[in-house]
């Protein structure tokens, strides 16, 4: 019994199953030596080619030399690509790929400068290099399997298991291709040098160079080179194998040489065997000893439709159309351009695609050579395909299931072991494109597998998320519990009381807000906006015992409003007044907040006033929100107010307080003056004063009447003071607001407010008096007001309501003054 090595030495061959003998057309291209083609103007280098994770080493506009690496990467699978010629990178963009799909892939477009200058090459003495250095050099030269699959060579040269046998594949079984044939004939010494490097790296027991018997010249040249080389005698031999397609397939070749079958789903390295192409061995030699990266390869350009068929050194990235033009290609109708051989290649949808590292042939057949695909007929179950299949599969069963889209069943017939050699399609009497069906089935299976994997990962992630959420929840609960315990332990009696008080305060606030809200809701029936404002003013009052006073005031307000609506009908400036009213509301809000800021230093009375003002401010805010006339402007001013009030209100408050004191003194006298002045000035000029103003001045008048009735100037003074404060605040506010570009209304108001506070007060009171006699209906409310004034407390509250009204009146008037040019200040 001979061992495997003995049999290898003897040259024993085994039969591989299946296979076909298609007509040989190698004579078209193998007669002439490997030629050179003129440089193309642009080169298209897809990046990345093998191994996805890498970064570009160049950018658009960079000058590159021949051999400059275009990509960098750290992954073991990364294989750099290099500039195929010297020139400029003009674009890095998706371009059609040299793939059956023609999908665009990222491509580095290099405009050649025509000089074809090499970058600096570092030749090496093989003996100086360690194994790792050699593998690194092979990797950085970007060497991929040149047989067609373009598997990174450095991985195959760095196997985990012991390698006993290296097979150098010079079989080249595809009927048209002769690239390896010519390479072996012309560069046998270089190939042997490359084999020497492989021998050094892998240290196999035997190296077998396998060549088909239809290439006797190549076999002879290789044998001569083997005889001359320095490798140990007996460790390397040339084995000529019988011509049969597809003997060049890796698994088939192993079976022919060793008689062993690579198990399904396994790789040859598991058997201690590695197969390299002769072109790869040549490229390894170039890379290691001369330092040249893989930038060009031998490509067979063949077919009856090129007038110069043959083998050419083509830079990687040469556009196919350039090659065809240079070899004088004459296209015919429905011309096919096939990349690879006729058996396993794919037709191009677009010839603006580059030559890749695995491209060994461009075939442009005439219609006599390869006709259009005949019509597919029904499978007759002849079994020819099963006989031809080199992988011992059952092609008709696979076809059956693939066609029915029962991919699971197809997979159970070992579809994945199909090498897509095309033998079954070749022998099929029904002209069924079987391989196409298998490709579809394979991609569907791959997709299903990917989906399954993704579903599995999604499930894991979902479970992990649930676990995490649960954990977080528990942690949170534990933390809360711990914190509560700590609080319980440290809390004293007073703290508890403080908390209870705070809770009570919050509850009270909420209740107040609710009350205010319901008050606002009930009174929103009146038609005019200004009436609404007045009504809310009155309803804001009901606090403590003020309910009676409020009721009276409301009745008054209603009557006054009725009268006013009648009067406003006659006026043509209705819309103007409404507009001003809404802006007045905004101003009111501002003043109210100022009052809040001032709250602390003020007296008890002022506090009540402030509370009312606050409630009013809320109402005003609600109103301004709903006001249909100037929604954007009001919104702006309120937001500005919010922004301003924090910092500026305090300052304004301080200023206002100081001013208020002065103003109060002034105002007191003015108020008295106003009372005395009762009548004459310009009722006509005020004819178009707004309903709102009328309303409020009427209320102010009530206030004055109250003051008269009680005969306490204090109240009047308080009214005046509040007014003065408000005006002062408004002016202070407008000063600060000027910086942040407040609304125009406020600025205009500032103009009116600043000249003299007294003047405005004067007009307000004057007007009040002017209105009084003109409205007969107002007499009754005034009497009731006088009645109510008997009770001092009630009166005080009424006074505060009136005060608030007066504020508004003053404001409205100011606004009016700013809009109407005919007002007193002018």
């Amino acid at each position, binding site marked *: 019994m001979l061992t495997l090595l003995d049999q290898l030495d003897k040259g024993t061959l085994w039969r591989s199953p299946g296979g076909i003998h298609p007509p040989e057309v190698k004579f078209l291209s193998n007669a002439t030596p490997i030629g050179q083609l003129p440089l193309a103007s642009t080169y298209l280098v897809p990046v990345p080619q093998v191994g996805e994770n890498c970064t570009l080493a160049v950018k658009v506009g960079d000058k590159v030399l021949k051999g400059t690496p275009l990509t960098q990467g750290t992954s073991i699978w990364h294989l750099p690509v290099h500039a195929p010629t010297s020139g400029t990178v003009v674009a890095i963009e998706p371009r059609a*790929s040299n*793939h*059956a*799909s*023609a*999908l665009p*892939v990222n491509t580095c477009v290099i405009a050649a400068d025509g000089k074809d200058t090499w970058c600096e090459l570092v030749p090496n003495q093989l003996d100086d290099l360690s194994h790792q250095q050699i593998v690194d050099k092979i990797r950085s030269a970007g060497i991929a399997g040149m047989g067609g699959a373009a598997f990174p060579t450095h991985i195959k040269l760095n196997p985990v298991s012991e390698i006993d046998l290296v097979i150098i594949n010079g079989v080249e079984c595809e009927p048209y291709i002769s690239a390896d044939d010519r390479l072996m004939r012309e560069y046998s010494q270089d190939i042997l040098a490359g084999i020497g490097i492989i021998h050094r790296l892998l240290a196999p027991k035997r190296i077998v160079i396998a060549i088909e018997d239809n290439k006797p010249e190549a076999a002879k040249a290789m044998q001569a080179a083997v005889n001359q080389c320095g490798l140990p005698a007996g460790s390397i031999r040339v084995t000529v194998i019988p011509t049969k397609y597809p003997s060049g397939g890796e698994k088939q070749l192993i079976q022919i040489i060793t008689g062993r079958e690579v198990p399904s789903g396994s790789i040859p390295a598991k058997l201690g065997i590695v197969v390299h192409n002769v072109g790869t061995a040549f490229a390894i030699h170039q890379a290691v000893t001369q330092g040249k990266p893989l930038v060009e390869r031998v490509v067979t350009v063949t077919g009856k439709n090129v007038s110069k068929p043959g083998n050419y050194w083509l830079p990687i990235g040469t556009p196919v159309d350039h090659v065809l033009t240079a070899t004088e290609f004459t296209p015919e109708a429905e011309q096919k351009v096939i990349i690879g051989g006729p058996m396993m290649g794919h037709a191009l*949808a677009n010839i603006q695609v580059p030559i890749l590292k695995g491209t060994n042939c461009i075939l442009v057949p005439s219609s006599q050579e390869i006709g259009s695909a005949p019509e597919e007929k029904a499978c007759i179950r002849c079994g020819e395909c099963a006989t031809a299949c080199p992988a011992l599969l059952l092609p008709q069963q696979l076809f059956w299931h693939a066609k029915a889209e029962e991919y699971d069943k197809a997979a159970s017939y070992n579809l994945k072991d199909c090498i897509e050699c095309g033998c079954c399609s070749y022998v099929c009497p029904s002209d069924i494109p079987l391989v*196409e069906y298998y*490709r*579809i089935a394979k*991609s*569907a299976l791959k*997709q299903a597998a*990917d*989906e399954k994997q*993704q*579903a*599995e*990962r*999604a*499930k894991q*992630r*979902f479970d*992990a*998320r649930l676990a*995490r959420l649960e954990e977080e929840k528990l942690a949170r609960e534990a933390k809360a519990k711990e914190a509560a315990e700590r609080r319980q332990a440290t809390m004293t009696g007073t703290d508890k009381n403080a908390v209870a008080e705070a809770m009570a305060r919050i509850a009270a606030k909420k209740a107040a807000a609710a009350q205010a809200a319901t008050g606002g809701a009930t009174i929103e029936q009146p038609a005019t906006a200004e009436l609404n404002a007045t009504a809310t003013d009155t309803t804001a009052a009901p606090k403590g015992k003020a309910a009676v006073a409020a009721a009276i005031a409301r009745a008054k307000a209603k009557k006054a409003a009725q009268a006013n609506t009648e009067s406003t009908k006659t006026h043509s400036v209705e819309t103007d007044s409404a507009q001003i009213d809404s802006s007045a509301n905004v101003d009111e809000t501002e003043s109210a907040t100022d009052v809040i800021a001032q709250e602390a230093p003020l007296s008890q009375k002022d506090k009540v006033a402030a509370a009312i003002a606050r409630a009013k401010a809320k109402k005003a805010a609600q109103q301004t929100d709903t006001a249909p006339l100037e929604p954007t402007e009001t919104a702006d001013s309120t937001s500005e107010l919010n922004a301003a009030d924090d910092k500026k209100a305090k300052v304004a408050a301080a200023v206002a307080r100081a001013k208020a004191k002065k103003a109060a003194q002034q105002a007191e006298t003015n108020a008295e003056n106003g009372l005395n002045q009762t009548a004459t000035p310009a009722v006509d000029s005020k004819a178009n004063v707004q309903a709102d103003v009328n309303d409020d001045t009427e209320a102010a008048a009530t206030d004055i009447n109250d003051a008269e009735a009680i005969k306490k100037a204090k109240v009047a003074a308080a009214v005046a003071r509040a007014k003065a404060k408000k005006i002062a605040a408004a002016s202070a506010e407008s000063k600060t607001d000027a910086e942040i570009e407040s609304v125009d209304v406020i600025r205009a108001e500032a103009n009116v407010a600043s000249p003299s506070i007294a003047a405005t007060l004067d007009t307000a009171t004057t007007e009040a008096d002017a209105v009084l006699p003109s409205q007969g209906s107002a007499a009754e409310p005034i009497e009731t007001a006088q009645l109510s004034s008997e009770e001092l407390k009630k009166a005080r509250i009424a006074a505060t309501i009136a005060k608030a009204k007066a504020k508004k009146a003053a404001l409205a008037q100011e606004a009016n003054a700013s809009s109407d040019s005919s007002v007193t200040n002018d």
Partner: protein
Amino acid sequence: MSGILIAVILLTLLALVFGVLLGFAALKFKVEGNPIVDELEAILPQTQCGQCGYPGCRPYAEAIANGDKVNKCPPGGTATMEKLATLMGVEPEPLNAEAQSQVKKVAYIREDECIGCTKCIQACPVDAIIGAGKLMHTVLTTDCTGCDLCVEPCPVDCIDMIPVTQNLKNWNWRLNAIPVTLIQETLSKEIQSKDPQLEEEKRC
């Protein structure tokens, strides 16, 4: 008489022995949960999208095991429904939801518009969105199941569902069948198809 007695005693003994055996086996070989749920879950696409009305794929698998319908999984499509029907031994039914497009999609966050609210992160059932509060978020496209759950909570509508781009790795041979039509053929067909129209017009 004694024969009958012996038979009765023997049978009673046998019954006792087998009773004990069965009882032991019931305890010893007790199956936790319903094994069919695992099988059903393996069929479901694990998008965890909740379109079936259950919070995740496992709850839906449990519901099917308890007699719920098998046609409530739009991401799985008809193929999944058929598998579920076969496993449960029920008649396949058309999908409940509107047949959504079978193109796989993944979420994409327009990052310059993202305000960093973390709402989408909380919504994602598979933790495929990364980011932190007030910082930009982004989607891990390889982990995104395309369940749409993050689109709704986004306050600034900066999440798009974009179809997965086709590349050389996920390219399907059938999908790219370029319909090649001969110009002359189509022309002649057009002429043919026009003729009856003309005739119809004339009739009108």
